[in-house]
């Protein structure tokens, strides 16, 4: 009797998720498999498959120096941007987790850049970093120019126009805009840590510094894993800021060429849809591998 009831309950459950599940299978899994299929062809967007190429698209991708720059740039961006943004996000989360006056205001203020349109905020950033933009003016007024001169940047340095600084400018922009989101994730994790642990630590004589590094930080492990994973996936998909700041060429000199921008070029500039789908497959594999590695590094993330 009980078994029948359980089965009915399960059926009801499946019935409830049926519609979104079908949509998910068709729109996500279906299109993914279709992209795998397209990647094996010379594919015309109007006429469909023209010629079966097998793995030739993949061979061409891997031997293209511009794709190699794209991979390098995407990995560089991810390797710098993710830890930087995690650090800022964690710092902000710890700050606004204190019982301070107006903390709701600070939470909202720190999160604010994340809700602004990335296109608008990138354009704003480009204006700020122009040779005669606000950033150069301010560092001049503060007398910081000798410092910048020492590391090779003149008073009117064109931050987005010079291929040595373009990507770092995007990294700083995105660290600023995304740290609010990361703060939110960390805040949720912080609040799941029981106060008992802190009390126990205090009884054992731990100061705030020790309490943070020996209690809070390790207990945030599930939070770290989540944020790092979301960050790496997002980082490897860097696109809109690169397109706006460096056009579809990833200017200057491929410094803003990312994997997704390369894919966009292959599809919409070169009209090479089979090739573009193959780039998508490669990106899929890169992200999948990165996620598996992270999984290994962070081990079991279930809170004890």
């Amino acid at each position, binding site marked *: 009797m009980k078994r029948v009831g359980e089965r009915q309950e399960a059926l009801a459950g499946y019935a409830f998720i049926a519609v979104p599940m079908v949509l998910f299978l068709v729109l996500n899994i279906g299109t*993914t498999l279709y*992209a795998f299929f397209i990647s094996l062809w010379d*594919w015309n*967007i109007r*006429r469909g*498959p023209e010629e079966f190429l097998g793995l030739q698209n993949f061979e061409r991708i891997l031997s293209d120096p511009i794709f190699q720059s794209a991979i390098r740039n995407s990995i560089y961006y991810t390797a710098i941007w993710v830890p930087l943004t995690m650090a800022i996000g964690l710092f902000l989360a710890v700050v606004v987790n204190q019982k301070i006056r107006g903390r709701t205001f600070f939470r909202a203020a720190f999160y604010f850049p994340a809700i602004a349109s990335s296109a608008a905020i990138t354009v704003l950033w480009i204006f700020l970093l122009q040779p005669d933009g606000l950033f150069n003016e301010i560092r001049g007024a503060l007398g910081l120019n000798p410092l910048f001169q020492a590391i090779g940047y003149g008073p009117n340095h064109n931050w987005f126009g*010079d291929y040595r600084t373009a990507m770092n400018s995007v990294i700083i922009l995105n660290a600023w805009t995304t740290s609010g989101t990361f703060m939110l994730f960390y805040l949720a994790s912080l609040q799941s840590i029981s106060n008992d642990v802190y009390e126990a630590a205090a009884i054992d004589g731990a100061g705030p510094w020790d309490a943070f590094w020996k209690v809070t930080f390790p207990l945030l492990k599930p939070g770290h894993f989540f944020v790092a994973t979301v960050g790496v996936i997002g980082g490897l998909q860097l696109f809109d800021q690169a397109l706006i700041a460096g056009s579809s060429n990833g200017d200057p*000199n491929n410094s803003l060429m990312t994997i997704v921008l390369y894919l966009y070029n292959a599809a919409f500039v*070169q009209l090479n849809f089979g090739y573009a789908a193959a780039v998508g497959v490669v990106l899929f594999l890169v992200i*999948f591998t990165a996620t598996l590695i992270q999984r290994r590094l962070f081990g079991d993330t279930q809170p004890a």
Partner: protein
Amino acid sequence: MRNRLLTLGMTAAFVLAACGGGGGSSAPGTSGPGATGPAATGPAGTGSAFDPSTISGEVTLGAWESSPAEGTALEAALAGFAAKYPNIKVTQETVAGDYRVQMVTNFGSGDVPDIFYVNAEYAPEWMREGFLEPLDDYIANQGFDTSTFYPGYADVFKSDGKTFGLPKDGNTIAMAYNTDLVTTPPATLAELTTAAEGLKGQGTLKAPLCINPSLDRGLAFLYAQGGSLLNADNTAAAIDTAESKAAVQWYLDLVKNGLAMTPSQLGDGWCGEALGKGDSAIVFEGGWLKGAMDNDFPDMNWAFAEVPAGSAGKVTITYTAAYGIAVDSENKDAAWVVMQYLTGTEGMQKWTEGGIAVPSRSDVPVPAGFEVIVAGAEYAKPGSGFMPGYSDVLKAFGDAFVAEVTNETYSADPVVAATKAKIDEVLQ
């Protein structure tokens, strides 16, 4: 733990799906291989004369709009059309955002405007991919006069002996100079460098010339000095000939010798801004410079002159856009009627009277201020759209050129080698 992995896998799959995009909507075989000619769709069949005034129907027109003035000019031209052909209703669809990308997805879905702008930049790819309807039968059957289109514009939209578009307007690159600092514009490249030497350090100039680190202007100087990108029948690279190399070196030497700077070095968005701000005295731009200067720098005294002649005589390059008709259009006859009006003398005059476009045919009056631009059209060569994959070649040249300038090495060899490698790749 398994659940989490699964979620991650699916997130990654979603990425791929999102990227694979486009393809999802173009199921194989949804549309024929572009074989439907005008003959199949209406009275334009081979041999029968085509009378535009007998056609009726509805046409959608796809256009980009880079300024309100451009919209007004198109409205004026379409008003003229409505008065002359009341049986055809034209609905204008302004494509917002990235026109090229939006149109490509439209081609994929088959839901595409009947007639639309085709920029020279991507015309070869659109012709190759079979997006555009051949116009030869329409032109022949109506007896439409295409002889007065400047070849530097019209040739861009021809492929394999067929015409796929008619230029709606056109621009050539001219020299623009600060008339307070330059009294007589240099007429030869030798005079140009002499003039630049004399301008060093004058007024507020950061550099006498502003040049784009790209073939988008460099091509004109390449041609002017007897060089070329491709051989005569466009089948192989010619960027590695002695003349071509010398021209690239000449262009680099302008920067090396302090005669020119790139907009990035000057801290300007483009060379027009450099001229307007007084950062440079001589720049190379098309007719679009006039509107920008009138708007942003109305007090600057400047004028257009023809691009100085090199050893190969007077040469400049064109930038243009055409009207094309979609292969998948169901209203091709009516779309052609719109096209023959807008690219004919009457429609083009109404369009160019708006002051933002320059006529692409010689039998349309030249709007004030664009005389030099039109003079250049007499001898101009296409500045884009003359080969498929040119955006990649442009990029290869630009990347290598910028590297030479940034690293202050100023050697033509790596630039030429990178450009040739890319040409070989796209031509194969």
